[in-house]
């Protein structure tokens, strides 16, 4: 879904509904989650099919509730996919502009909005400096995902 469509629909919803989150960081959070949930489900369900159902059944027959089973059995087994989805979603959410531009307010400005403001002000070299600083963050995340992230999980 294009971010602009989602942004405009979220504005109209939270201006009409009596939930006062418009103009706070929470509406941005909600928008990011709505936009990127397909990527998250992709990552999670890819590792979900690698987990045998019998492991959950064993936990359930031993008297654990579904929530306990999910937290103690499924989530640890899901961890590699969970971390991969977490980091890839963080990286694409960091440079997201099309939703943020509709929903930001003075106190919930993000880096991409700041870059856009500077660019609109014609300060191109400042935008480049900000860009260089911004690029370091996802690069660091990607390296973390490669090196220590590869050893996360229950398999030793």
């Amino acid at each position: 879904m294009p971010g602009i469509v989602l942004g405009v629909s979220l504005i109209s919803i939270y201006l009409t509904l009596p939930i006062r989150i418009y103009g706070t960081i929470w509406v941005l959070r909600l928008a990011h989650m709505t936009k990127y949930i397909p990527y998250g489900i992709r990552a999670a369900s890819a590792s979900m099919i690698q987990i045998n159902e019998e492991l959950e059944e064993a936990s359930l027959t031993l008297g654990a509730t579904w929530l306990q089973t999910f937290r103690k059995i499924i989530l640890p087994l899901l961890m590699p996919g969970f971390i991969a989805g977490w980091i890839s979603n963080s990286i694409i959410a960091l440079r997201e502009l099309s939703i943020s531009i509709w929903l930001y307010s003075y106190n919930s400005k993000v880096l991409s909005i700041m870059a856009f403001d500077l660019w609109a002000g014609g300060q191109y070299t400042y935008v480049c400096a900000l860009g260089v600083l911004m690029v370091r963050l996802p690069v660091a995340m990607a390296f973390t995902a490669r090196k220590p992230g590869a050893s996360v999980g229950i398999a030793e």
Partner: protein
Amino acid sequence: VIDLGAWKRVTLGLSCAIFLLAVILPIFVLLWSSFMPYYGVPSRELAAKMTLADYQYILNYPMAATAFKNSVYLSIGSARLLMRLASVIAWITRRNQAARARVSRQHGFYSKCPCPASSWG
């Protein structure tokens, strides 16, 4: 795998050229401009005017700290929340047999609603 034979070098050159145009040059210009006092074509005269003023300006920008904090909070925090939600949804869509006992057919449908494509695969 397709054996390219004599065309190997040509295609290697082409992919290197695309990499240069799409990745190396843009990053070089980004780095170059970030050290320059004004926007310009890379040249020797301009290189003499190299300065850190742009970085100083960005780091002293009034909204920079807030924007950075918000960005990190949004990207890392909501991605974590999102993955929690997504793993429950993935469980519901993958374990349809077990889920049917707990979650009604309608709930299964709603969980697929936001992204039908990702639950078909």
